[in-house]
């Protein structure tokens, strides 16, 4: 589009001003002096195209609503239209008659342009050109994008790409980093995989466990069998020894019973009854004799007893009087005290009566007023006293308040102007975080130093140490899984070795024990064995045979006999040794057997240990090989597993620290900026500042200044409030004083009537009334005492008299011989006599009862004696005894027979128990196979063997139990399925992170590609066109523009001189740079596809010399071939130079 005519109807200083632009001109130079309205005209074009701004500064001459700017516009296709614009919110486009236009003919021309972009791209001042130019080139030198940034969508795309790239970087990157989600998930996956590996129970592991169980079971079974055999043998020998003597006893008892066979058969019960009857009769006879003696003694005792009967009859009366005796004694002792108390009370009352002006106590008691009356008088006294005191207090208070008010008024300083601190407070609040940030920065710096040195220490502490963390980072370290594998391999080997060593140690101990056992056994000389005995017996038998063969030859007979004798002695010696030394021999034989077994076991264990050692060396070699790439000499795998964890931690810390340092730098910069602002603030508070102060101190100083300001302000506010309150208090005190005055007067009027009951005169004072009242209050206590003591004395005297009369009467009746004694002593004597008589009476009754019981017992004894006699008669007949002595002898033999019979059956029972249920014959048969003398030794030997066997069985049982437990644990499993599921979860997470990253990374990549594509299709033509324009503008000093790439591969723009020298933008002179910016700007405008808008420059050429001005004008004129170019200037020479441009029509418009 081209503006053919601009009509400034009412705009700024213009009224109805028309600027005509020649349609065929290539360049319109609008020439106007300063203040002629160049800028107004430029703004008017903006307002025409985009509408007036809400706040316009061009209404200083015309009213806002009358502002009008209009134009005649020709489009590229030749169409022409006119429009006018008014200021307003809507329908601001008008036709010639001021009617709103139905359609907006400008909308398709302007498109998405705004006023701001218009003035940045089309309507330029030299400053805007330069700013725009730098804008194009800055942003990290990313020329392609920056150029493309003229499109809003591409900017959005770039922002999006940045966001996606950032998000993607948080998820994954080629360098391993714990902060990236991918690697965290990868760690979890590796961990889960390791757990799964550990959890799986392999077939081999399980088969090994089963084999171990089977072996342990087999061993256990063998031992059980051996144990069974040994125990059975031991058992038989023990049984034989056990029953040997019992069988003998049976034989003996049977012999004794034969001796007692002459007695008749009698039942045990009958014999027992006869024996008891015999015994009973003897007992009864003894008992009867004893009773007779007791009877005679009792009769003598009864005759000796003395009893006073009349006295016993009066017992109740005497006891009653004795009970009263204590009471009477107390009354006699109390009586004088009571009489003295009555006297004292009377004297007190007399004294009180005198103080009140009365005659004596009785008169006083008669005039005593009631308690209510005394209370009334007291109240009246108190009322009058209170009212007077109150009045005095109120008067003092009023005076005090008045004095304080005067003081406050005097102390108020003459009105000084104070500053309200509120706005300062708000400003200071903006710096609230500064001290903590400064503190944080300091701490961070210390923390970094510390962390760095710690990290170095950590790295050096590693054993083996790689040196610095940096050196560590560069090492090629093996994977954790490999180390883990080696750790397990070493662990298994070590376990095996340890097991073998323990077994060998155990064997060595057992071996030593056996050796010691053998040594101890051999200490007491050579041990005889059963084998030796067998040999000696064979020799003896041979000697015997030899002798029998030589019986016919006398001399040979002698030799043979001697030989037999020797052989016999030898047999005896060995037998004796075996008998004496049975246990030792048994132990010796057993120990030798066990030693042989241990030897075999030891040989096989040693072989296993050697094999273990070999495998361990092999593993060590592999282990070193694994680490050879890192150049480190590895310790044991368990150590190195920890080492690699520690090393990873160090590396991770190192990465974290590098990240944190960046944050620290940002913080430091922020603090510096804030400090500058705070310094300005403190200056405003009129405070002197020490520039060396730390930031916190500076902040504290600012705060202290503010607090001082605030303190002054609040002190002034407080003083005013206190004066006001003092005034109010004074008024209140005066009111209270008046009230007190009126109360005093009322009390004085009521006085005479109130004190009348005290018997005082009308004009008595407060003090007199109080004294009289105090006397009357003292009367009641002594009055009450006097009356009560009088009554008690009378009662006591009556009691004593009645007691003495009763005693006199008793003495007269029961014991006239006591008449001469005092009443109390007589009563005591009577009591004593009564007690004696009562005791005698009781004793007699007891003796009589005993006599009765003895009689009954005698009758019973006689009856029992008759029964026993009958039984004894049948005994004499049955046993053929003539007298008790013969009977007793027969009964004793009978008893002996019973005992033998019992012993026999008990011995038989015992034999059944001891013989384990075998019958007597079987036991005899078994016994025949043993030599009783050798039995203890044999039993001892077998016992030791069984005990050793039991120990072996216990050991085997423990092994079996452990093997089974291990096998069952494996069969139950270690939740491998759970571990597998964990791994699957970790894999899912890893995949999800991968997908998330891929989506973002791919989208970011696509955004980059799109931007790049845009650059290729759009930006490159731009640079080509700008090159031409720039070459023209510099008259060939620069031939073309090129794109260089900086260190970060970012494209940067350079100018190429004729000689091939490349000059970057910073290296160009200011004028050249402006030419470059203009060339870029014009090229950009040319590449717009939409309806071209006019290019308007405002004093663009101010910095150029004539030559350069000419070339730029030529350039703009060249641009003006297709589009409208308008140049505002106040330099006449610009217009002149423009006019010299050949083959281009230049239109100079004067303003």
């Amino acid at each position: 589009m081209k503006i053919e005519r601009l009509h400034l109807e009412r705009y700024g200083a213009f009224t109805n001003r028309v600027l005509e632009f020649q349609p065929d001109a290539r360049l319109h130079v609008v020439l106007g002096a300063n203040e002629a309205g160049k800028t107004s005209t430029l703004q008017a074009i903006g307002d025409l195209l985009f509408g007036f701004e809400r706040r316009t500064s061009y209404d200083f001459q015309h009213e806002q609503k009358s502002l009008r700017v209009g134009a005649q516009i020709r489009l590229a296709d030749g169409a022409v239209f006119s429009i006018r614009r008014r200021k307003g919110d809507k329908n601001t486009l008008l036709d010639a008659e001021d009617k709103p236009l139905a359609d907006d003919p400008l909308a398709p021309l302007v498109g998405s342009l705004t006023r701001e972009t218009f003035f940045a791209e089309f309507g330029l001042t030299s400053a805007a050109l330069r700013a725009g130019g730098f804008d194009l080139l800055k942003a990290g030198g990313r020329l392609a994008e920056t150029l493309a940034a003229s499109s809003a969508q591409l900017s959005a795309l770039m922002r999006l790409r940045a966001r996606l790239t950032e998000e993607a970087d948080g998820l994954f990157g080629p360098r391993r980093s714990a902060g990236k989600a991918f690697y965290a998930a990868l760690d979890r996956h590796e961990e889960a995989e390791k757990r799964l590996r550990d959890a799986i129970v392999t077939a081999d592991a399980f088969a090994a466990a089963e084999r171990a169980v089977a072996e342990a079971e087999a061993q256990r079974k063998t031992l059980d069998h051996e144990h069974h055999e040994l125990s059975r043998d031991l058992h038989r020998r023990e049984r034989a020894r056990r029953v040997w003597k019992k069988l003998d006893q049976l034989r003996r008892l049977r012999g004794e019973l034969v001796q007692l066979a002459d007695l008749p058969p009698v039942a045990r019960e009958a014999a027992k009854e006869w024996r008891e009857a015999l015994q009973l009769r003897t007992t009864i006879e003894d008992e009867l004799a004893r009773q007779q003696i007791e009877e005679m003694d009792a009769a003598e005792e009864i005759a000796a007893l003395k009893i006073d009967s009349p006295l016993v009859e009066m017992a109740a009366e005497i006891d009653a009087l004795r009970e009263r005796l204590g009471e009477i004694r107390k009354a006699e002792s109390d009586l004088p005290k009571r009489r003295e108390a009555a006297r004292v009370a009377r004297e007190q009352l007399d004294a009180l009566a005198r103080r009140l002006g009365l005659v004596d106590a009785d008169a006083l008691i008669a005039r005593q007023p009631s308690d209510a009356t005394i209370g009334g008088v007291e109240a009246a006294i108190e009322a009058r006293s209170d009212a007077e005191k109150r009045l005095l207090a109120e008067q003092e208070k009023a005076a005090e308040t008045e004095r304080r008010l005067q003081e406050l008024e005097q102390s108020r300083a003459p009105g000084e102007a104070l500053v309200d601190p509120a706005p300062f407070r708000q400003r200071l609040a903006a710096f609230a975080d500064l001290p903590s940030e400064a503190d944080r920065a300091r701490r961070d710096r210390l923390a970094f130093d510390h962390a760095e040195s710690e990290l170095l220490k950590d790295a050096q502490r590693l054993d083996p140490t790689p040196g610095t963390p940096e050196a560590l980072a560069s090492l090629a370290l093996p994977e954790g899984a490999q180390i883990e594998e080696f750790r397990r391999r070493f662990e298994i080997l070590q376990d095996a070795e340890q097991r073998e060593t323990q077994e060998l140690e155990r064997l060595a101990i057992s071996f030593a024990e056996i050796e010691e056992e053998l040594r101890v056994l051999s200490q007491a000389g050579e041990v005889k064995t059963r084998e030796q005995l067998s040999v000696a017996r064979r020799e003896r038998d041979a000697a015997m045979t030899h002798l029998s063969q030589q019986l016919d030859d006398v001399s040979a007979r002698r030799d043979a006999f001697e030989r037999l004798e020797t052989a016999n002695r030898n047999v005896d010696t060995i037998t004796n040794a075996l008998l004496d030394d049975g246990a030792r021999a048994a132990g010796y034989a057993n120990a030798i057997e066990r030693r042989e077994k241990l030897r075999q076991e030891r040989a096989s264990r040693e072989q296993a240990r050697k094999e273990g050692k070999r495998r361990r060396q092999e593993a060590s070699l592999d282990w070193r090989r694994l680490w050879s790439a890192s150049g480190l000499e590895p310790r044991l795998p368990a150590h190195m597993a920890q080492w690699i964890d520690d090393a990873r931690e160090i590396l991770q810390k190192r990465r974290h620290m590098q990240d944190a340092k960046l944050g620290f730098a940002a913080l430091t910069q922020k603090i510096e900026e804030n400090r500058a602002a705070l310094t300005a603030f403190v200056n405003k508070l009129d405070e002197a500042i020490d520039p060396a102060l730390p930031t916190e101190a500076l902040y504290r100083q600012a705060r202290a200044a503010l607090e001082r300001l605030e303190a002054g302000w609040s002190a002034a506010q407080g003083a005013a409030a206190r004066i006001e309150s003092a005034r109010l208090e004074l008024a209140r005190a005066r009111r209270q004083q008046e009230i007190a005055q009126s109360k005093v007067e009322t009390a004085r009027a009521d006085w005479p009537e109130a004190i009348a009951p005290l018997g005082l005169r009308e004009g008595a004072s407060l003090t007199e009334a109080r004294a009289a009242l105090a006397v009357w209050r003292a009367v009641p206590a002594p009055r009450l005492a006097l009356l009560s003591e009088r009554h008690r004395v009378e009662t006591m005297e009556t009691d004593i008299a009645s007691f003495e009369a009763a005693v006199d009467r008793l003495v007269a009746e029961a014991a006239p011989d006591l008449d001469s004694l005092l009443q109390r002593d007589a009563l005591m004597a009577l009591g004593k006599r009564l007690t004696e008589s009562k005791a005698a009476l009781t004793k007699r009754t007891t003796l009589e009862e005993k006599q009765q019981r003895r009689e009954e017992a005698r009758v019973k004894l006689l009856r029992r004696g008759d029964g026993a006699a009958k039984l004894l008669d049948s005994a004499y007949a049955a046993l053929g005894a003539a007298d008790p002595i013969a009977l007793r002898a027969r009964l004793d033999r009978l008893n002996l027979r019973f005992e033998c019979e019992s012993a026999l059956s008990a011995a038989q029972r015992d034999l059944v128990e001891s013989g384990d249920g075998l019958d007597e014959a079987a036991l005899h048969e078994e016994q025949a196979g043993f030599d009783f003398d050798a039995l203890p030794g044999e039993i001892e030997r077998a016992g030791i063997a069984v005990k050793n066997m039991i120990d072996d069985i216990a050991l085997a049982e423990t092994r079996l139990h452990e093997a089974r437990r291990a096998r069952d644990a494996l069969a139950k499993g270690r939740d491998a399925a759970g571990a597998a599921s964990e791994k699957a979860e970790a894999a899912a997470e890893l995949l999800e992170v991968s997908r998330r990253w891929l989506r973002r990374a791919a989208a970011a990549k696509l955004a980059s590609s799109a931007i790049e594509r845009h650059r290729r299709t759009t930006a490159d033509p731009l640079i080509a066109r700008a090159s031409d324009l720039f070459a023209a503008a510099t008259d060939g000093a620069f031939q073309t523009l090129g794109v260089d790439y900086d260190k970060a591969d970012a494209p940067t723009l350079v100018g190429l001189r004729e000689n091939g020298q490349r000059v970057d933008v910073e290296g160009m002179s200011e004028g050249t740079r402006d030419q470059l910016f203009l060339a870029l700007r014009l090229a950009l405008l040319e590449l717009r596809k939409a309806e071209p808008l006019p290019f308007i420059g405002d004093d663009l050429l101010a910095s150029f010399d004539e030559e350069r001005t000419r070339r730029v004008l030529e350039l703009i004129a060249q641009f003006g071939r297709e589009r409208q170019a308008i140049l505002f200037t106040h330099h006449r020479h610009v217009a002149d130079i423009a006019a010299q441009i050949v083959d281009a029509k230049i239109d100079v418009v004067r303003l």
Partner: protein
Amino acid sequence: MAFTFIHAADLHIDSPLAGLGCKDPLVRERFAHAGRRAVENLVSETIVAKAAFLLICGDIFDGEWRDVSTGHFFARELGRLERAGIPTFIVNGNHDAASQIGKSLPYPESARVFSSRVAQTITIDALRVALHGRSFGQRLVGGNFLASYPARREGFLNIGLLHTALDGSRGHESYAPCTHEELKRFGYDYWALGHVHAAEIVSRDPYIVYPGNIQGRHARETGAKGAMRVTVEEGRIVDVTLLALDAARWARAPVDVAPCRDEAEVVTRIEAAMRAELERSEGRPVALRITLQGATPLHRRFVAQRETLEEDLRAIGFRHAEDFWVESLKIETCAPTEKAIALDEADALDVEALIAGAAAEPEFSQALAELLASITEKSPRELRGAPTSEASALADEARDLLLGLLAGQERGDS
């Protein structure tokens, strides 16, 4: 005489389920041990149903699984059946043949495993039942495998136990291939098959039945899983019903969002699908894969906000049940075929065309391949295939993500 028996296959005990991508320990635990729970359910149901016997047609164990305690678990479960007086008949499948753990397990006497050398017939005279079967001796068996099966036993109910992929058309690797007609020629009454993980009654005359696997293991093994309960009356099969025995359920819900006008309507539709799945699961934990389908102008928005939407749906899932887990959200929608939108700015950049052009450049494909390679290189070996398989969709997804986010920026989405 009437009785029932249970036909199961493909237990794959302790074969790990696919990861859920779930951090909730409750849900994870329930899925982790679902496989064993399902086997326990099988045994308990068999006992409760007072079944006459149990058939297991192969793949009790997973070929690669090496933990022998799995075998002991199975032996213990068989022990429960023995105590209940129920015999078990087993043919080994290709996985069992490859597995190390099934080799020498202490099975109880009531569990009989068919020989792998020859096909055998075992009769249960009291029920007049003849079982014919043969185990896999190795991972692959020869073509004459089926041919070795014995002839029908007259007067008996004849049941064939066979681990086979049939004609291989069911998407499983072709083991012991054979056809429907070949099976029919044997004259058996019931072919108890194993190997294919989806339950199917292939034929009713004779019955040729896959019970499917007993527990779904990933999002492609959806719906109720279990074993067949077969009812026999007077020597004839009268009913074959699937018993659901799985202890956790995988499900897929395709949701057509074409008619939805906005996201709220989409969420409402998804919630309805979730409720339906929850009801079907009968109290089991559920892992649901939701797939949005249909042409919708919201397509790019879904792509751009997929992760947020997925999180929202998971929260909704937990609102329905403590173990209702949205396994993933798949976006298979497409943008509607657009009528060319007249650009209101004559020279506005056609970003969409620009991005489409960039996406079509071979350099971009190259860049994608590099991205894939860079992350694949760091991934554990066994996971490397997964992202690569999705590579073709990545370019489209990147484009839709960019455009969706751009549109979101204009709308002012965060």
